[in-house]
């Protein structure tokens, strides 16, 4: 179950954390290694990759010189990890049809069939998650399965499997690797007893030690995937220093991080990716965090057709009032939310991932344990029961399309009609005084066809199974399901997550249109501020399970950014607009 609630793809907001994460890092003057005439260590040319028609990388070009530290930043889903997987020749890439473009290492074209080949060529990678044996010492972990061996009498008799470990040599190799990092890491310490930073160092030392054991002639390139995410500031600082030391010895480093200050501090070059393309590559000198954030997040949501409107709040009733709402949703805990929603408006709820914005609709609906008061049209709605929520005339389009939103194995007709059928007895023919409620296939078909046309859902027929549709079309089915209930108030959670830009604007337009034509109040929860600003009338920012403030959607996005990181300006008047 947990998998449902770990939100990825919303990290553009996480990354803005870096804005406030002012780190004290002394910028070490670096020895310029860049000999212009030398062939670049790594060059990636016109790299492209699609997953079954879904373009995730297109025309990616960059070069990396010896001793250069390249900072790679971008939202989740921007293509960073796919790019690294291509570099490493991971199975996943081969199984999904390979990639386009060339990789050149030292000027020679290479194509790694397995990650072992990539390792042999001198590329090391440190993953975000640790892969260490907790009850083994640092040395044992560093040299796991590559231990230097000693022959004994028994190995003469029974073969090499009875060789014993050469402990002295092991310690020597691991000490050498640790020394290169210049960190106080005890080679004999058990991993389970280490602070988290030392685990990270152990991982890096393992990559470095590979050149000492004959497997590799020398580590040339190190990829560090968010190594500082789990570290405290001091630990991160010593890691950054270690990185500089390594770079000085000529090792090139690709450094992936969401902490932008680190990137600026430690990297020579910064490369910003967005939607599978490189938006910007340039030296880190003189770059400020807001610049990077802008390149990274400034997604062009096609909102040209959606015009800002001025919503008249005069004489509007409060349709929904949340009072002291708490929701126990793993990863999205809501602590104390007070919010008034006015009839007919589109209100956005934004905020960083994990701060509780998703918990609000999930808790109000009753999908997760919740408490407090939800008053809809003046009536108190008992919590923890989806039925009460739906009966009151509200509907919810879940952010978890596949888990909550759809019957993947059933037809589109079923998906669209089910909730309305069960809650409002629509599409049913009643016999024997309502004792026998027969499914009205014709009515279901007509309704579904209507939505297919209205929302431009691409499908072969309404009999198609929901799992066969693309993400965008699935999202439209979810909307159709909610529209079929004809709700007075609609909660829409992350309506554009994981769908392409074209579908995004369609979904947003459909929401706005529905709001204008049917007068349905919409509460839209999204991690993408630009999207909220495009269609909402006002936006509430949630942080740490509470509403920090509500601003009109026309407010400058910088103002929202400040609000998200907890800095209120005078403009915020906490609720009423």
């Amino acid at each position, binding site marked *: 179950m947990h998998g449902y609630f770990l939100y990825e793809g919303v990290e553009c907001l996480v990354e803005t954390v870096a804005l406030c994460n002012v780190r004290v890092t002394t910028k070490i003057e670096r020895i310029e290694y860049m000999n212009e005439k030398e062939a670049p260590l790594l060059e990636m040319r016109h790299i492209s990759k699609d997953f079954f028609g879904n373009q995730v990388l297109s025309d990616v070009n960059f070069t990396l010189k010896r001793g250069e530290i390249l900072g790679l930043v971008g939202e989740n889903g921007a293509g960073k990890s796919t790019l690294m997987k291509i570099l490493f020749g991971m199975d996943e890439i081969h199984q999904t049809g390979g990639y386009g473009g060339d990789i050149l290492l030292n000027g020679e074209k290479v194509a790694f069939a397995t990650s072992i080949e990539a390792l042999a060529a001198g590329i090391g990678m440190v993953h975000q998650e640790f892969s260490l044996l907790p009850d083994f010492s640092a040395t044992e972990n560093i040299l796991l399965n590559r231990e230097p061996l000693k022959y004994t009498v028994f190995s003469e008799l029974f073969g090499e499997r009875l060789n014993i470990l050469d402990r002295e040599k092991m310690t020597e190799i691991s000490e050498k690797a640790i020394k290169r990092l210049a960190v106080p890491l005890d080679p004999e310490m058990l991993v389970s007893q280490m602070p988290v930073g030392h685990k990270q160092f152990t991982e890096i030392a393992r990559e470095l030690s590979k050149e000492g054991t004959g497997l590799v002639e020398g580590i040339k390139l190190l990829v560090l995937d968010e190594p500082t995410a789990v570290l405290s500031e001091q630990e991160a600082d010593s890691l950054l220093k270690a990185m500089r030391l390594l770079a000085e010895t000529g090792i090139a480093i690709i450094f992936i991080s969401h902490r932008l200050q680190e990137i600026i501090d430690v990297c020579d070059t910064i490369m910003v990716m967005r939607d599978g393309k490189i938006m910007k590559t340039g030296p880190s000198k003189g770059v400020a965090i807001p610049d990077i954030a802008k390149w990274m997040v400034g997604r062009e949501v096609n909102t040209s057709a959606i015009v800002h409107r001025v919503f008249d709040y005069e004489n509007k009733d409060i349709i929904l009032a949340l009072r002291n709402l708490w929701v126990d949703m793993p990863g999205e805990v809501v602590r104390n939310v007070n919010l008034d929603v006015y009839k007919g408006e589109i209100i956005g709820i934004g905020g960083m991932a994990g701060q509780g914005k998703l918990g609000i609709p999930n808790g109000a*609906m009753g*999908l997760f344990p919740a408490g407090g008061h939800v008053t809809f049209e003046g009536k108190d709605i008992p919590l923890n029961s*989806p*039925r009460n929520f739906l009966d009151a005339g509200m509907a919810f389009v879940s952010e978890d399309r596949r888990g909550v939103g759809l019957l993947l*194995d059933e037809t589109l007709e079923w998906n669209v009609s089910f909730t309305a*059928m*069960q*809650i409002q007895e629509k599409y049913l023919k009643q016999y024997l005084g309502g004792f026998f*409620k027969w*499914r009205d296939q014709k009515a279901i078909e007509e309704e579904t066809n209507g939505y297919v046309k209205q929302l431009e859902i691409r499908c072969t027929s309404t009999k198609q199974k929901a799992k066969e549709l693309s993400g965008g079309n699935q999202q439209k089915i979810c909307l159709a399901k909610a529209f079929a209930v004809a709700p007075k108030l609609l909660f829409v959670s992350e309506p554009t997550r994981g769908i392409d830009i074209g579908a995004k604007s369609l979904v947003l337009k459909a929401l706005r249109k529905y709001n204008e034509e049917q007068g349905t109040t919409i509460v839209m929860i999204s991690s993408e501020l630009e999207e909220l600003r495009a269609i909402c009338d006002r936006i509430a920012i949630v942080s740490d399970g509470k509403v920090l403030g509500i601003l009109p959607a026309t407010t400058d996005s910088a103002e929202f950014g400040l609000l998200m990181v907890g800095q209120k300006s005078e403009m915020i008047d906490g609720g009423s607009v």
Partner: protein
Amino acid sequence: MNTQNMISSVKSTLKSFGLPRIIIGLFLLLLFILAPFVGVNIGTSLSDTLNRFGMNAVMVLAMVPMIHSGCGLNFGLPLGIIAGLLGGTLSMQFNFTGPSSFMMAILFATPFAVILGWGYGQLLNKVKGGEMMIATYVGFSSVAFMCIMWLLLPYSNPTMVWGYSGSGLRTTISTEGYYLHVLNDFFSIRLTEHLTIPTGMFLFFAVLALIIWAFLHTKTGTAMTAVGSNPVFARASGINVDKIRTLSVVMSTWLGAIGILVYQQSFGFIQLYMGPFYMALPAVSAILIGGASVNKATITNVIVGTFLFQGILTMTPSVMNSMIHTDMSEVIRIVVSNGMILYALTRRTEATR
């Protein structure tokens, strides 16, 4: 190009029918072709096959509601069978005879099926995700418990109790004079000397199948299918998932009870004690061979599956026996039935029609 189109359309037809079903179907056909050559009377074979189909079909049908609600295959079928046994023995105890004894057996079995099914449903709601494993043990343990009860319950009809002690039920009780062949003989059609169609039994099954089919088209039936397809979705649509699941388990248990009564009226005996122990597996295999998956099953799956499974089970021993001229029918029956179960469990490709 044209041939290619044809090949691909043939391929898709085959695929939609499901390869395992085709293989088993062809094997059954082969047996029927072989039969006359080895001296097996085709009329008798066909008659046997039809009879066995009718006897087992309702118990296979008992799989459907639980599969639809996502409770998996009803390995706890013995529980329903026990309700049926209680109904049957009570009807005999109160000396109902002829067709009325069958009606009364159903009536007596119903409250037991509902109560046992409800409890069984509550249990399954507590073990979501592991239903089939738990169901198996519910079946086994209920059989063991009833082994004690059959001895202790105060039955007194002399046709049912042990002759020497005068108390405790016998292991097998004849239904003769009670409900033996009440369905089989209802409008039965005698085509040849060896071939009789048990019309009544088929009609009875058809009525039950129709009821289930119709139920699945109602509001509650739709909810049941949705619960099986995605319980979280169903919950988010205001469905009380546990209630629907319990309902499905009660339905399955009741059908199991009716199923065993139909079986007994044709077979002629009530088998107590360890009788219900292995009844679940053939029914489970039949519906799997019929093309059902763990969470999708249709009435067609029931009919096709029961026919194929029981057909092979009837035909293989008789044909093989005649071919090798020794009486190995029991051995072959066990090998074939268990082989089919294994085959069904390993190859559960869902058929799309």
